[in-house]
């Protein structure tokens, strides 16, 4: 299958090739613009300022924690959607994808209304446990997880639906329980989908801006992630914003490429 695909690639129809190249250019040219406009001469000085590293570290930590949270909740949710046989499943699926279409700022407001100090749930968190999520690093993680989780759920659910359920049935006839089947049969068979979803989810969390600044506010070292730092730097010193953007770009490309190589490439 894959061999045949490769042999035909030499004569790709022009109808596809042209828009494909246009699409590639459309995605790449803005990044080239960043590179051209970067203040290369002063780059090292700007790069090694404490603020940059503080924001970058916070971004990486929060995106990773948010992804872990998404994995913990999202994979079971995807399983429920694909295998649970729930009534009104398409409606539930629509709700799962709501954060994808919701403007992130609105997502942030919604989170405030529920998890804020006066929120439906948040007020109890505050009075019973003294926990208040807004303006904390935990709040950043929650905001990023809210926005990024649909990417994971959709990927994993797609993989689950494409996976052959007969293996699970075979495992069941051999006496495996549902949890054992899930762990030893289902999960390995959908691993590429889970990894792809995880990568997407992490990338989305890393770039999250709107929900974060609305729900978690902006304070250096606590909630100022790279996208927030870029936004605020843009208002006073656009060159700093470009430098910050380059750092974020470089880190994400390196991480994404490494993950692809290690996981998705290896599994193909």
């Amino acid at each position, binding site marked *: 299958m894959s061999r045949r695909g490769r042999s035909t690639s030499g004569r790709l129809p022009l109808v596809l090739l042209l828009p494909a190249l246009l699409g590639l250019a459309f995605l790449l040219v803005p990044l080239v613009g960043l590179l051209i406009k970067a203040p290369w001469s002063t780059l090292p000085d700007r790069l090694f300022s404490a603020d940059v590293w503080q924001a970058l570290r916070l971004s990486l930590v929060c995106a990773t924690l948010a992804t872990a949270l998404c994995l913990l909740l999202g994979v079971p949710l995807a399983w429920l959607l694909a295998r649970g046989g729930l009534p009104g499943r398409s409606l539930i699926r629509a709700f799962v994808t709501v954060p994808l279409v919701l403007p992130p700022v609105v997502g942030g407001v919604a989170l*405030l*209304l529920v998890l*804020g*100090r*006066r929120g439906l749930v948040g007020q109890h968190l505050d009075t019973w446990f003294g926990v*208040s999520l*807004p*303006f904390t690093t935990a709040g950043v993680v929650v905001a990023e997880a809210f926005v990024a989780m649909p990417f994971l759920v959709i990927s994993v659910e797609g993989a689950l639906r494409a996976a052959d359920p007969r293996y699970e049935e075979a495992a069941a006839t051999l006496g495996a329980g549902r949890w054992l089947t899930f762990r030893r049969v289902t999960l390995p068979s959908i691993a590429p989908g889970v990894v792809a979803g995880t990568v997407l989810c992490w990338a989305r969390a890393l770039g999250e801006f709107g929900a974060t*600044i*609305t729900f978690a*506010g*902006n*304070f*250096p070292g606590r*909630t100022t992630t790279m996208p927030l730092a870029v*936004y*605020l730097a*843009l*208002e*006073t010193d*656009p060159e700093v914003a470009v430098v910050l953007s380059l750092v974020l770009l470089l880190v994400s490309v390196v991480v994404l490429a490494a993950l692809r190589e290690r996981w998705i490439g290896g599994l193909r």
Partner: protein
Amino acid sequence: MFRRTAFAALATVAALAVAGCGGDTPAASSPSTSSSALSGTVNVFAAASLTGTFTQLGKDFEAVHPGVKVTFNFGGSSALAQQINSGAPADVFASAAPKNMDDVKDKGTPTNFVKNTLEIAVPKGNPGKITGIKDFADKNKKLAICAAQVPCGAAAAKVFAAVGITAQPDSLEQDVKAALTKVSLGEVDAALVYKTDVLSAKDKVEGIEFPESSKAVNEYPIATLTKAPNPDGAQAFVDYVLSDKGKMVLTAAGFDAP
């Protein structure tokens, strides 16, 4: 109705795109026609603290000049100045501080049209028991102020210096309305915003005045922009803001005369 709105939006976007590409090319304006026959769209970039009053003024202006549409871009003055310098097709800029107006390169002579004073905004009932500006040094209170880039943040810094305290904010908001939202949702015990913001949200927040606010009074300048796509409309809108009717709307909202 929806279709018309959508079409108008599309037309605006197209106009913006064309104006953006055009760069220095002046938009087609025919000076021969009488000045009373204004047309087209006036793009007004205004400080977030002007959201309520300018929206009102825009509607009034449209009523006086049928055929003219006023569109607004409200935001932190620093962000707006940045957008204008990057070529955003603005006709008028109203900043919450002279500094951000100075940052804009190609503009007419700015006129100060109002003054605004800082005030402490607390949620209804003052749950955080805020008594005055000194509470902003209290680590145990949830506090929001504007980021130093935006005028309200710069004014806040002046106030803190005048009082002699080190502020302990939990969040540095990107514009004054974002700070106000945090108060009206009850997420912070207090935020330092403008007097006019407290007034605009008076069913949700309470204001606490403090004497040191006189140390950081913000003057609001307004100016037409040299590269305005609609120079006649721009001048007319500025004149309208400076007129007695304009002043009435602004002072009713709590702004002081310059």
